[in-house]
Every structure is written in structure tokens, then in C-alpha cells.
């Protein structure tokens, strides 16, 4: 197990699974989103306000992850997009069958604008020593998902804290997997 954890920890700070969005940020999707929550912020509906306040139209900041959830179908697409792949890699490599996300933070930088082509990458930030919680025994990890625009500017960073674990009874058997 110590070899596995050393191997996993060697990935801390390494950018993985870089991916560029299938298509540019769409303004009509901004309106779909605003309509779904009845968000009347004039930044998204009134071009004069957007010009004055944000130097032109922007997308709602919390839509960041939307731009990497693809449309339901696209011609010729074969691979299934797997968000937060690093999380699932960790579960598999550390032999931890269950996992929960305990925390999700998003930090916003440059505004995202219609027409932007965004790129994302996943970076493992830390993996804890083994800990036992009421869920079971396992490890906490922090994964950052960075988003940049076509000019290489950071538009946002999402940070997820996950806890991968074996349930109480499995942990008590003491069988390292």
C-alpha cells in the first residue's frame, strides 16, 4: 500500500485530463439558465447595462461547470465525458469502493463571455493519511479543477474535497485492498 500511496502522491500538483470545450460559450444557454431560476440580473438581459458594467455580455459565474457538460448528443462523438476523473482514479488505485464529496468551493477570476473557448484541467492537491470517520476508514483528498479561456487567463477554479473509504465492517476486517 505504501508504494501505491507514494505513486498517487507523486501526482500532487500535476495537471491531468486537459480538455477543451466542445464549442464556444453560448449566449442562448445563459438565457436558458437565467430563465430556469428567474434571474433578472440586467447584466444578462440588457446590453447597455452589460456594456457599462462588464464591458459587454458575460455568463453567470456559477455556470462555469456547465461549459464542460456537453449537449446530450453530438455527431461523431464516441467517448463518454467523465467529469472529475481524478476522483475516480483515486478510488480505484487506493482500493476505496465508496466516496463522498464533502465540500465544493468555486473561486471566480476573469468573467466568462459568450464566444469564449474554455479549457479545463484537473489537479490533485493533497491526499491525507488514513483516517476513520463514522462512514468508514479511508482518505481525504482535494482536487482542483482549473478553467482557462482562449487567452490563457484563469476564469475560475473549483475545489472539491472528497473522502474515499471502506465501510465500517470492511475496515474492521483489516484487509488492505
Amino acid at each position: 500500500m505504501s508504494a501505491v500511496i507514494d505513486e498517487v502522491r507523486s501526482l500532487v500538483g500535476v495537471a491531468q485530463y486537459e480538455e477543451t470545450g466542445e464549442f464556444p460559450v453560448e449566449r442562448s444557454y445563459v438565457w436558458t439558465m437565467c430563465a430556469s431560476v428567474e434571474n433578472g440580473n440586467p447584466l444578462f438581459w440588457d446590453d447597455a447595462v452589460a456594456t457599462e458594467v462588464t464591458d459587454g455580455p458575460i455568463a453567470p459565474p456559477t455556470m462555469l461547470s456547465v461549459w464542460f457538460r456537453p449537449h446530450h448528443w453530438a455527431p461523431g462523438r464516441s467517448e463518454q465525458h467523465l467529469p472529475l476523473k481524478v476522483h475516480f482514479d483515486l478510488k480505484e488505485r487506493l482500493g476505496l469502493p465508496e466516496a463522498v464529496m464533502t465540500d465544493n468551493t468555486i473561486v471566480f477570476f476573469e468573467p466568462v463571455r459568450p464566444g469564449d473557448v474554455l479549457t479545463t484541467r484537473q489537479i490533485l492537491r493533497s491526499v491525507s493519511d488514513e483516517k476513520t470517520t463514522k462512514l468508514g476508514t479511508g482518505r481525504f483528498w482535494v482536487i482542483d479543477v482549473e478553467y482557462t479561456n482562449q487567452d490563457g487567463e484563469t476564469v475560475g477554479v473549483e475545489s472539491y474535497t472528497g473522502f474515499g473509504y471502506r465501510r465500517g465492517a470492511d475496515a474492521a476486517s483489516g484487509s488492505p485492498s
Partner: protein
Amino acid sequence: MSPLAPVLVFGAVAEGDLLPELRYDVTATTVVLGALATRDWRPMHHDKDFAVVRNGTRDIFLNTPNQAAWFERYITDWTGPHGRLGRVTFRMRDSVFPGDTMVLDGAVSEVILDDTGCGWVGLDVTLAVDGDVKSTCAARVALPVDHTDNPWHRRHDRWKP
């Protein structure tokens, strides 16, 4: 053209201030529209049979990214367009279903002027149904410190979210 006046400026906000409550009756349309708007095609957000049989929930339920959008709308309803989100932290505890009336409440947890002169307001927002908190959002939003300041024009070293 005269510049658009901010709805809310930093100096008008104090720790402990309460935001106006938002009540919203959630329907199946709310849930499906929210899932579509966030391109979340997982069936428990649009297919009741799947949600009940496979997830063991009583109905389809609001997805996490759409709850994020509800929190954003709630916060910017209060700040107006000059309010710029810097950071949000979500904790989801339980699900929100059609038939629920969700109630969003918020309070100012701190007001901080940072070393670049940016005025930050910390908010603790809750989304509750029948008094049970379903999810929480701790947010940091920048407000204009005066009528000449615009947080959206801050970049690089002048934007420390």
C-alpha cells in the same frame, strides 16, 4: 450617458444584516428546467420512475449546479449588477422535490476592505424547506466601495477573490 448607479454600495452593509427572504414553489418543471439549463442529463433529475425505483427518493430532485444558480440569483437580486461573486462554498445536505416551497435566507457574516481597496461582503445563505436546511452557501461578493468603483473592472493584482 450618466453612469448606472450601483443598487448597493459597500458602506451601506454591516455584519449581521439580513437579506430579504426568497420563497419559491418548486414544480417538476422547475427541476427539469434546472437540469436542462445545467446540461445534467442524469435521469433522477427528469425521470420520476428512475428517481423512485433506482435512487429510492420520493420524486425527481433539484441538481447541485442548478442550486448554485439559485444561490447566485438570490445574492445578485440583493446586490444588483455591480455585485461580483468572488467565491462560493456549497454544502448539500438533502434533496429538494416538486411540491416543496424552498425558502432562501441570507445574513452578512463579515465586511472586509482588502489591501487593494476592494470591498468584500461575506454571506451565509441557506436553502430550506419547511424549516429544514437542505443546502448552504457561504459566499464572498465584492460591492462598489463608492459610486466610482466597479468590482468588474478589477483584474490581476486588484482582484483577490
